[in-house]
């Protein structure tokens, strides 16, 4: 079975995000970029499936400009066998990403498509669901546990009510949640080996995909500063304070 894993280049989770002065977006100058942490988890799961003998080949795919190849090299250092770089310099909306990933899926015909549940830059949490819908294949999102048995996958999903176990037919899109696994540290020899693994570069036109019309970012602003809390002495005061704020 082939496993396809999508990875996205995002601002590193340790970076304190700065909004540009004119509100036109987030300042990316000199900012450290990394692989989306949920995609790392997806990649780790794919590599574990390969190590367990369940998967024969792991293919990483990314969408982005020239520098996104750095994240593909990280994916190859994790243990992916080869990578596909869909070169796009413009901002990509979730629907456009889903269309591109659908085209890559159809070309590669993997038995499983693993993704992070969402990217930590825009937090949309849409691409996995949209890709599965466009492909007309099952989806199992927020996976905290994944077991493959023949052409079925059992997935424990982390949902608001607790844990939900579902079984899906393969091929399917499975999106990784935080507790699916703990990604390994990249080893220096693996980083060197990754340099020699093949990366195929394609454009949206090569894949026959057109960008979806849709989203325009009109303004970016930082979240409001958190106000200091207040201490109350009695339950009555608490209720009064909550009423004052219109919360009860």
């Amino acid at each position, binding site marked *: 079975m082939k496993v396809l894993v999508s990875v996205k280049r995002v601002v590193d989770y340790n970076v304190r995000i700065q909004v540009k002065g004119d509100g036109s977006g987030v300042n990316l100058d000199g900012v450290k970029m990394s692989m989306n942490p949920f995609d790392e988890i997806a990649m780790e799961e794919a590599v574990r499936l390969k190590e367990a003998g369940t998967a024969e080949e792991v293919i990483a795919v990314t969408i982005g400009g020239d520098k996104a190849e*750095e994240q593909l090299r990280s994916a190859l250092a994790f243990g992916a066998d080869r990578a596909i770089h869909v070169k796009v310099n413009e901002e990509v909306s979730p629907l456009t990403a889903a269309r591109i990933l659908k085209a890559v899926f159809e070309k590669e015909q993997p038995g499983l498509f693993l993704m992070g549940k969402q990217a930590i830059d825009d937090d949309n949490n849409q691409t996995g669901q949209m890709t599965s819908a466009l492909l007309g294949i099952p989806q199992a999102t927020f996976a905290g546990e994944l077991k493959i048995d023949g052409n079925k996958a059992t997935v424990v999903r982390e949902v608001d009510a607790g844990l939900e176990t579902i079984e899906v037919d393969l091929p399917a899109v499975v999106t990784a949640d935080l507790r699916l696994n703990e990604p390994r540290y*990249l080893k220096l020899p693996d980083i060197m080996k990754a340099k020699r693994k093949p990366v195929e570069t394609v454009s949206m036109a090569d894949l026959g995909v057109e960008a979806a019309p849709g989203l325009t970012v009109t303004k970016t602003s930082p979240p409001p500063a958190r106000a200091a809390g207040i201490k109350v002495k009695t339950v009555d005061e608490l209720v009064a304070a909550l009423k004052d704020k219109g919360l009860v």
Partner: protein
Amino acid sequence: MDFTFDAQQNQFRDAVRSFLVVEAAPERLREYWETPTGRSAEMRKKITDQGITSLSVPEAYGGLGMGDVDWVQILEQVGYHGIPDSLAEAAYLGVAILNALPDEHEAIKKKWLERMVAGQARLAIGHPINPLVHDAEIADLILLWHNDELHATTPDKVKTTQRDSIDASRRLYEVEWTPSDETRVLTADQAAPIWAEAVDRAALAAAAQLVGLAQCMLDLSIDYAAQRKQFGKPVGSFQAIKHHLANVAVQIEFAAPVVYRAADAVANNHPRRAALVSHAKLATGRAARLSARNGIQSHGAMGYTWEADLQMYMKRAWALDAYWGDSVFHKARVAEFIFADDAPLGPGETFTA
């Protein structure tokens, strides 16, 4: 001269940082301090698995065949996380000495370089520039200087006496031994250039670690200054603290490129190698000392206490500042270069390859 690191070197740095953030957390380092050897076999195994011990071992012996410039950012990370391990001595310096051995010593080279890749070799290095030898008692092989000769021995053939260091994670030993034909690996003629290079490489390793330590202490101080409040505001918002920390940031910014320049000089055996390395050691020592001093001040002096993590890094910085040449030694080498009659000074010379 290109001062930027390539994508692979940055990936190495990031990989080592991700590893050490988890594996060398301050509370774990404190646990190691309490053990008799101060070392953790488990941690060394993990370091080996990461490929760090094989970084500069030639590919013919199973290593990665990387060089000084590839090491420098890793050594910064080693400094930043203050790991209690003589990694720089063994995997960087020791491997370089073994690599430099002439062909007639292929057996020794092969044996120890392959053991280094497998994580089965701790090397200790004794040179008169340091009165004590780091990790001598637990080393598998001790490389010793004697009148410019290179000798190799093992802990069971020497007398070691432990001496306390201001940095509780260091394990320093006085080594008493008798040079003999049996221990001699290279004669003075053969070994003198190897030792000269080793001193520069070791000072460079200390300098790179000092940059990391200075940054670590600055980060700890910024965190503290952002949390600790006085008059209803974080103390970091007051100029008295802010300027202290900004001064440290400036020193680090000025020191780091000097280290990178020195790494390039060591890698390419630059004619001004010694002066460039000494410059790096002096610049980084100054940055780290200032970071320690202003860090203590920013912590309201409690940074010196055992409970505060700052003291761990501060003491390491003080120890490394005098390691492989104190400021007198390095200033003398810079002075020798600057005051020479034909000293190639000026902007046109600074960045010559």
